[in-house]
């Protein structure tokens, strides 16, 4: 008898507080598994966002900081500059990273800060109850876009990976999804690559993960996976935008 799947030691025993079916949990697990597989758990310092993942400092089994909303990249820059030999990562939502924290992520990328960002794009502000995010799709309803996002009023969703890919020192940029097992496997690969890029000292690395928010999308968890695939993926195409290999 062999255990083929068990909870990674990269996670603590604390149960997640997320809503039923919220894919934040999957993404947590992938990050933690990668840390374990690369033998980085004891060496890692993570930075939690303000957003539904705020309590992730209780879940990742490593040293953690709880950063102010949007400022995780600045906090991570401070941490990494003090501990250049440690593995540093931020875990951030789309409100956190793409809205209030847009300057911080861009400048961390510009400076080529050697940390890894896990960017959870669920096209909504989860924690505060479903307000419009910069990534909310045109027509998608939100509590602050009650008739759906109107592109003439609020513009079109920000494609963060494409934007960051214009920055030379953002050496690893990939968008993945977790809406089915195949994509979950691919997501894990990207996350692993991102951490490896960091450890090789090559520059800034980020993985954008398309994620669900059943609660604020007003859908069941299963419907949400489908909605992600059918609505988010066309606008936020999956793929690798930057990889260190191309630098050579």
């Amino acid at each position: 008898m062999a255990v083929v799947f068990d909870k990674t030691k990269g996670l603590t025993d604390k149960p997640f507080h997320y809503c039923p079916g919220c894919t934040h949990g999957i993404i947590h697990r992938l990050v933690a598994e990668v840390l374990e597989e690369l033998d980085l758990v004891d060496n890692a310092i993570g930075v939690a966002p303000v957003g539904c993942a705020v309590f992730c400092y209780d879940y990742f089994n490593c040293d953690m900081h709880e950063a102010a909303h949007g400022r995780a990249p600045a906090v991570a820059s401070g941490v990494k500059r003090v501990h250049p030999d440690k593995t540093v990562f931020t875990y951030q939502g789309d409100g956190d990273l793409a809205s209030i924290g847009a300057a911080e992520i861009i400048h961390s990328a510009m400076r080529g800060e050697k940390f890894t960002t896990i960017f959870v794009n669920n096209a909504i502000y989860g924690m505060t109850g479903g307000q419009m995010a910069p990534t909310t799709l045109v027509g998608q309803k939100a509590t602050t876009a009650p008739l759906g996002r109107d592109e003439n009023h609020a513009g079109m969703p920000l494609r963060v990976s494409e934007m960051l890919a214009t920055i030379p020192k953002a050496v690893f940029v990939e968008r993945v999804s977790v809406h089915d097992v195949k994509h979950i496997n691919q997501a894990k690969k990207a996350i692993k690559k991102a951490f490896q890029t960091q450890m090789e000292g090559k520059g800034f690395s980020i993985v954008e993960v398309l994620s669900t928010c059943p609660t604020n999308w007003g859908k069941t968890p299963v419907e949400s996976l489908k909605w992600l695939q059918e609505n988010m993926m066309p606008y936020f195409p999956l793929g690798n935008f930057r990889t260190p290999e191309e630098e050579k």
Partner: protein
Amino acid sequence: MAGRVIFDENKCKGCELCTTVCPVKIVVMDKERINVKGYHPATVKEMDKCTACSSCAKICPDVVIKVERL
């Protein structure tokens, strides 16, 4: 390749994601029971069909499922 899945039942939130990915469709919701969290937990009815593919475990957002190969 027979397998076995073990549910840490009280962590289950009844989201049903695991039920959608099982290649042999043996993961179902137990509508009879309610766990401490107040949810109908997921369960496996015909364990002998399990292939230990881990799909259910991989999609479970709450790390409820452990998979063994027998």
